[in-house]
């Protein structure tokens, strides 16, 4: 039996004027999952997260939280802790006053919130009583974490959460995310730091130009594509041979090696093709980190779009 999704988007689309920020996006986050939302700048990650918390209304499709369609100010937001882009506060008020007013604005009383736990996470000490305008970016981010934990959320939505944090703080946040997931909370996290997603997330959704490119577990994505580094005697000739193969996505010369992104097929096929072309192969090394997979997927998506746009333009000209 499939566990009911805590957060789900279905055929979600958002256009700003003629620009489609998100197109026909569907994915779900279930209890205990830590889902990474990956994509280059402008992929539509933040717009997606904003639609999921009711800040932006979708043009079509639906976003649901706990099985209920999201709308601005919906009660389900009480069960969500969200940090959308940078943590922001009223600068002329103290950290503590910000937490209190933010909490009370939603109709609750501060002693009902998990204030002690949240402040322990923030680790700001007496600085929590200082005006926020005196805080560093890292302190604001930590206060932001304290704020989103006040409600003991069942779903955390984090948009680039480690921006401005030092490595120790990043590790602390990573551990926190794991602890919350272990207690059954779901986490949806967007990040540019692929290594961070690799270490933090169990599931990944990859977006490019507003569209879903791939989704699955980190292991599934790693095995869906690979990058191969090949050392040869004649790099130029080898690059020409490899670029002619349909199984190869992108070929780059990197020092003494060629970096080859495989769409499908096996490494042995590459070696065979090179040997047949008279190129001596010194070594073949497969690299399979998420970054390579991510870049390969985004690149494929871009190529597909360019190709579709070209066909569309040609078709249009033929019609005329």
């Amino acid at each position, binding site marked *: 039996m499939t566990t009911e999704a805590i957060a789900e988007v279905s055929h979600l689309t958002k256009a700003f004027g003629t620009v489609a920020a998100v197109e026909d996006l569907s994915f779900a986050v279930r209890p205990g999952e830590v889902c990474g939302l990956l994509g280059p700048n402008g992929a539509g990650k933040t717009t997606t997260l*904003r639609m999921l918390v009711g800040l932006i209304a979708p043009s079509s499709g639906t976003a649901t939280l706990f099985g209920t369609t999201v709308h601005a100010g919906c009660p389900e937001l009480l069960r969500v802790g969200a940090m959308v882009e940078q943590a922001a506060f009223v600068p*002329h008020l103290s950290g503590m006053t910000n937490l209190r*007013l933010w909490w009370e604005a939603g109709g609750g009383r501060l002693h009902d919130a998990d204030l002690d736990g949240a402040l322990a996470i923030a680790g700001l000490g007496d600085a929590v009583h200082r005006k926020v305008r005196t805080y560093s970016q890292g302190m604001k981010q930590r206060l932001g974490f304290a704020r989103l934990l006040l409600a003991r959320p069942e779903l955390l939505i984090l948009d680039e959460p480690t921006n401005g944090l030092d490595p120790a703080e990043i590790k602390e946040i990573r551990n926190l995310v794991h602890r919350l997931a272990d207690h059954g909370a779901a986490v949806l996290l967007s990040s540019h730091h692929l290594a961070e997603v690799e270490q933090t997330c169990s599931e990944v959704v990859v977006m490019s130009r507003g569209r879903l490119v791939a989704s699955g577990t980190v292991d599934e994505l790693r095995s869906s594509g690979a990058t191969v580094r090949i050392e040869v005697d004649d790099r130029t000739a080898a690059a020409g041979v490899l670029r002619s193969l349909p199984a190869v996505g992108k070929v780059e010369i990197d020092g003494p090696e060629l970096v080859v992104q495989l769409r499908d097929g096996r490494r042995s096929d590459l070696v065979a093709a090179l040997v047949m072309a008279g190129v001596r192969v010194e070594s073949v090394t497969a690299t399979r980190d998420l970054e390579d997979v991510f870049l390969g997927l985004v690149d494929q998506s871009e190529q597909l779009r360019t190709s579709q746009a070209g066909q569309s333009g040609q078709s249009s000209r033929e019609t005329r």
Partner: protein
Amino acid sequence: MIALLRTELIKAVRRTRTLVILAALIGLPIVISLAVNARSDRRPDRGEGLFRLASQSGLVVPAAILMMTSAFLLVIIAGTVVGDAVAGDAATGNLRYLLLRPVSRTKLLIAKAAVSTLLVWVATAVVALTGLVAGVVLFGWHGISVPFSVSDTGAGVGFDLTAGQLLARLAFGTAYVAFGFTALVAIGTFFSTLTDGASGAIAATVGVYIVSEILDAITDLGSLRYGLPTHYRTAWVDSITANSFSGDLKAGVIVQVVYALVFFSAAIVWFRRKDIRS
């Protein structure tokens, strides 16, 4: 709703800017009172008439100051407070976090407009009270004797106003001036929902009032001027200078209510549908 009101009030009151405004609201009436005390050239035309009468009684001084400040200083202050209400939060990014709570956008906007209105009323009252204290110290607490009334319709017969009557009319004038910012609050709230930059909303709000004053001065516009938000701004002055409560007072209230209904409704409709991208 009360929690939202409290939140918005605390945010607004605990700003350094609020203290600066308060200092200006206290300081300016004192300076004007001293200037009135030092002034020797007094002409009995409208508005000027209040300043002429001010030397007779300290109870008229705050009325004269109210008339003067309601043309510009209070407009700037009201425009600043209301223009910043939504757009200021958007500029700091705080608006999106406020809306991550299960908060109705309509209620939030009502809370922001209510707090802006309250602050404008308090600002008007501070001007009146400070002017009253300064006026009584400089000119004393007593009634006035007006040898001939001065109003839009021309000079009339003279009359006397006791200190009690003057105080009541000052309270009435203060309330009318404060209420006269209702349209500005609604217009400013609407502008504040349109932009994520507070300075733009503030400039647009104050700009509307300045343009309104300019248009009102063009008599060739005839009855079109009656619909301007500032046209009836000084209608209350006749209660002191001419001992009369004209129909302009009622018209002024109606104009304010109409602007408030139109612009506040527009603000709610817009804000409810707005994509929060700040």
